[in-house]
């Protein structure tokens, strides 16, 4: 990705706060974002797995799709994504993908059904920063009459992740303790509305909180007063999600990959598999029935040397795939990677080799996640 000139970069409402916390800022998806703070990526990663890590994800796109009924809104969304949206309960959240007509992935996103009285026809969407303008145009261009897209530019989004994250939030919002994974809970704290979802991108228990931009600095300061909380940058966010086996858009999934190839078929519920009615349904149902020709898999290189994105995957003397994300897993204490291989080689334990700096590095296909998920269900 070409680097954006400093002057063209966008800033989140926490920009000055990051600098005050000692962040090293880098360009990411058109924003100036913290890649790490003073502790460094390794320490920040391990802190999140042990305590509570605070992430600024305000660069992501927050928007609403709404109409006068849930059925109408759900039908409009189901024309764009393969997940079952209609059967979401109020406050329930689901992971899905915006699909191109050929079944390729335009973006991945979270969709939540509103639990508010008077907002029965509202869905809240969170999309990737780098895709959001294209996503909004795509969504707006495909909504039927009576269903609208509303952008929310004045909302910040933060995540608090790790085994102590929910207890930290519970000191302010005790009800969060019993809110299950992938569910929303709204709370008012000192006059500020917090939209809290029990979700995240680390494999740990935790929350993501949507909060008005003008209130986010004070809220983060308050969180940081808790000794269990430290700020965490994009570097550790990447190593945490990689260990958790979660896809990064533009790397592990893109317009050339289908959700089935990406091993995301769990995110396509039964009714949608049977009925179709989403972009690329023909290809996706064919891949569900007969298996895809290639599959996203985990890879564990032998030894200590990481294999990075772009490394070729070899078996039987030929190229069978490519690494799409790879690096060092601080909790695994060794290198971890994911990539796509021909389906015949996707079984865990299959020996392969990875071309790293011109040399063959032995590795094995491995089940993901590399670190067990600790979601609260």
């Amino acid at each position, binding site marked *: 990705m070409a680097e954006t000139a400093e002057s063209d970069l966008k800033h989140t409402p926490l920009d000055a706060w990051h600098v005050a916390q000692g962040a090293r800022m880098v360009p990411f998806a058109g924003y100036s974002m913290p*890649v*790490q703070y003073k502790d*460094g*990526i*390794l*320490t920040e*990663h391990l802190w999140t797995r042990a305590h509570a890590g605070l992430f600024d994800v305000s660069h992501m796109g927050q928007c609403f799709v709404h109409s006068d009924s849930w059925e109408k809104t759900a039908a409009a969304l189901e024309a764009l994504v393969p997940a079952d949206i209609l059967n979401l309960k109020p406050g329930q959240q689901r992971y899905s993908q915006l699909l191109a007509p050929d079944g390729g992935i335009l973006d991945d996103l979270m969709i939540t059904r509103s639990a508010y009285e008077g907002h029965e026809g509202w869905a809240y969407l969170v999309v990737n920063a780098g895709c959001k303008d294209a996503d909004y145009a795509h969504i707006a261009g495909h909504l039927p009459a009576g269903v609208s897209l509303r952008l929310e530019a004045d909302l910040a989004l933060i995540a608090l992740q790790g085994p102590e994250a929910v207890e930290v939030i519970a000191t302010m919002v005790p009800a969060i303790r019993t809110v299950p994974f992938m569910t929303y809970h709204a709370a008012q704290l000192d006059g500020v509305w917090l939209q809290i979802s029990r979700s995240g991108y680390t494999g740990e228990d935790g929350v993501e909180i949507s909060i008005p931009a003008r209130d986010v600095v004070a809220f983060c300061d308050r969180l940081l007063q808790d000794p269990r909380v430290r700020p965490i940058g994009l*570097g550790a966010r990447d*190593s945490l999600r990689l260990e958790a086996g979660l896809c990064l858009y533009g790397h592990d999934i893109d317009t050339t990959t289908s959700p089935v190839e990406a091993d995301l078929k769990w995110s396509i519920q039964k009714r949608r598999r049977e009925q179709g009615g989403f972009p690329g349904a023909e290809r996706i149902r064919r891949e569900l029935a007969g298996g895809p020709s290639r599959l996203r898999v985990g890879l564990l290189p032998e030894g*200590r*040397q*990481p294999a*990075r994105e772009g490394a070729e995957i070899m078996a039987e003397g030929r190229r069978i795939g490519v690494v799409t994300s790879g*690096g*060092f897993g*601080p909790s695994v204490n060794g*290198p971890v990677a994911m990539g796509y291989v021909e389906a015949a080689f996707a079984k865990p334990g299959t020996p392969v080799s990875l071309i790293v*700096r011109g040399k063959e590095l032995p590795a094995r296909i491995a089940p993901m996640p590399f670190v067990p998920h600790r979601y609260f269900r």
Partner: protein
Amino acid sequence: MTTYYTKDHEYVRVEGDTGIVGITDYAQSQLGDVVFVELPEVGKAVKAGGEAAVVESVKAASDVYAPVSGEVVAVNDGLPDSPATINEDPEGQGWFMKIRLADKGELAGLMDEAAYKAMIGA
């Protein structure tokens, strides 16, 4: 003994006809937590500016270039098992290799401490 620096942030500390080579404190701070290091074999001939070692942090892989030409006469054997030493003490315990200098004249093309500090803005 005098220490010389390259624009790629390697140092060579010259003792007699041998140079102790590693990466600078500035380099390790930019790289972040080092998780892997690959050292050359003893006896390997390296050229000034040529690849001599590999160092990888959580985030990225980097080549380490030989500041001077010569033969690798020793490597820091303990380093691959404790790569964090490069972060903790880059210009001491975190040295990479010793090179027997083929041409001391090459040193004139490197920076001294004052020039290196000026370059990194220290």
